[in-house]
């Protein structure tokens, strides 16, 4: 499998603040990676380095290129949505498509028009006349019509309502993703994307605290509903977290096998967001 992105010992400093600390990361072709972390963890800093928008120290290669030095070239193979608000307000939908068609060698304007025909976005609209959700649809339509090897989405659904968010990811998965492409997504709404991810990367204070694929994750982390009787026994097994719901203790364990845990109570697959919270808290107490 070919490597799309490789970072080794990537560091980034803003004056006194160390935004990225020795980041090591590899992303292979065909993955959908969720880059998840609290506010200010360095997600956007990392993505900016990947997109060649900002410099960084250490070795960073995207599609074999140094992103900061070869940004314009790299952008033929990468596309990204940084935030829903970045399309210029004054531009008309038709102009945005025409511009992209002329500037981008791998853009198919017919595809974009086809995507937009399923939405309320009209060719004559200006971006400032569109709602937030429609702007996101337009941006997604542009990006999905680019035949790119890597798609980077930084909080693509920020500020959209649940209907738009669901549609956004449905479109992405059904109409775009084909295992030849690679997608990196950052978001706070982990629950909504966890079913589409193949890999998760947790980042905290500039460090990568977890880099695993979803299968690994579900074979190593377990959520157990412990009845009151088994509470002390379960505590002795050192859960990562525990919370109490309707008289039962829900505990999260890191374990190699689920056999023992099943004697304690009902075992479930933990959600990525619970796992995220647990790992972030673990780091804090450690």
């Amino acid at each position: 499998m070919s490597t799309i992105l490789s970072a080794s010992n990537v560091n980034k400093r803003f004056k006194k603040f160390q935004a990225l600390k020795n980041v090591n990361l590899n992303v292979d072709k065909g993955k959908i990676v969720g880059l998840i972390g609290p506010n200010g963890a360095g997600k956007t800093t990392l993505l900016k380095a990947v997109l060649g928008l900002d410099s960084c120290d250490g070795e960073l290669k995207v599609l074999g290129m140094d992103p900061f030095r070869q940004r314009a070239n790299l952008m033929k193979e990468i596309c990204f949505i940084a935030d829903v608000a970045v399309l210029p307000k004054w531009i008309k939908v038709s102009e945005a498509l025409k511009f992209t068609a002329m500037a981008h060698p791998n853009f198919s304007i017919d595809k974009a028009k086809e995507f937009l025909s399923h939405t309320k976005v009209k060719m004559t609209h200006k971006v400032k006349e569109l709602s937030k959700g429609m702007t996101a649809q337009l941006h997604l339509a542009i990006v999905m019509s680019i035949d790119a090897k890597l798609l980077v989405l930084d909080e693509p659904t920020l500020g959209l309502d649940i209907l738009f968010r669901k549609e956004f990811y449905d479109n992405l998965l059904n109409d775009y993703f084909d295992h030849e492409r690679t997608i990196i997504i950052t978001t706070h709404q982990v629950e909504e994307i966890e079913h589409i991810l193949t890999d998760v990367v947790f980042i905290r204070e500039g460090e990568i605290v977890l880099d695993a694929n979803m299968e690994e994750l579900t074979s190593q982390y377990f959520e157990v509903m412990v009845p009151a009787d088994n509470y002390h026994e379960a505590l002795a097994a050192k859960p990562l977290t525990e919370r109490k719901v309707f008289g039962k203790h829900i505990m999260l364990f890191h374990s190699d096998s689920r056999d023992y845990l099943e004697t304690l109570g009902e075992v479930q697959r933990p959600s990525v967001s619970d796992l995220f919270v647990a790992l972030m808290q673990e780091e804090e107490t450690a």
Partner: protein
Amino acid sequence: MNAFKALLMREYWEHRGAFLKTPIIIGIITAVMMILAYLLVENVNVKLTGGEGIEHLKQITEQTNTDITYITNIFFTGLEGLFHFVLFIVVFFFLLGSLFDDRKDLSILFWKSLPVSDLSTVLSKVAAAMVVAPLCFWVILMASELVCMILFSFFLLFNGVNPFTLLWANADLLSHWAAFGMGCLIQAIWALPVYGWLLLCSAWAKRRPFIWAVGVPAMVFMVRGWMAAFTFSGQAFMNLKDIMMALSTVFLNALAPYESRADLLQSIRLGGGNNGLFDPSDIMSSMYHNVFSGKIIYGFVFAAICISLAIFIRRYRNTT
């Protein structure tokens, strides 16, 4: 190349209002003023002698067709001067925002997500200032002058004068259009150092590029002035004066790319003794001679430095 064309079209789309509507408004105002002037003059004269102005015109022009050539030359040269002036103002503010506005509204992230280099982005702004905007103004100027000619023809017709033999045969419209087109080019060459400086400020400023663009030169002059004052050095004052003179030459030519403005004003005051000055071919040759004065190379160098710096900043610093 295709990408560069796309960038130029993008500038046109974004600034259609300034590049196209501004000259259209000037053209409309000019035409309306012509109509008002005609109507008002008629109202004044109607009780006295009835269209005396036109009658008078008819009499004198029947004697000398050169008078009508002179009148149209003055009128069109004036309109062209106004267009040059407004063009500079429009381009001034266009450049000031050109590398700043998209950073402010974060749309730079969209532009940078496309495979377009920062070099061509900045150069497209230069080309928009030097070619696209002047071209828009040129087209509208031609249309405006044509409308004025047609209006004038109607005024003549209403008063029983044949506009074709009197007006169209004597007004050299094509030369005026050529003179304005060339004027735009000369103007762009003169204004290049100013344009470069504006691009640099636009790329540099974290907010309010106008303050940088105007404030930095003002500060430099103040400091130089004080230094000269404290050292009681006549030489320092002379240097300052030279810089001021050079700068005002640049600005005057950028605003109105004609030579011999002083002669022009003089001749108007004297009642139009020197008809030649308003002749388009004379205007063109005066612009031409003026611009290749050797010292203009300093302007080019300064512009090149500013534009290179703007590209560098855009490339390596401006990400958000």
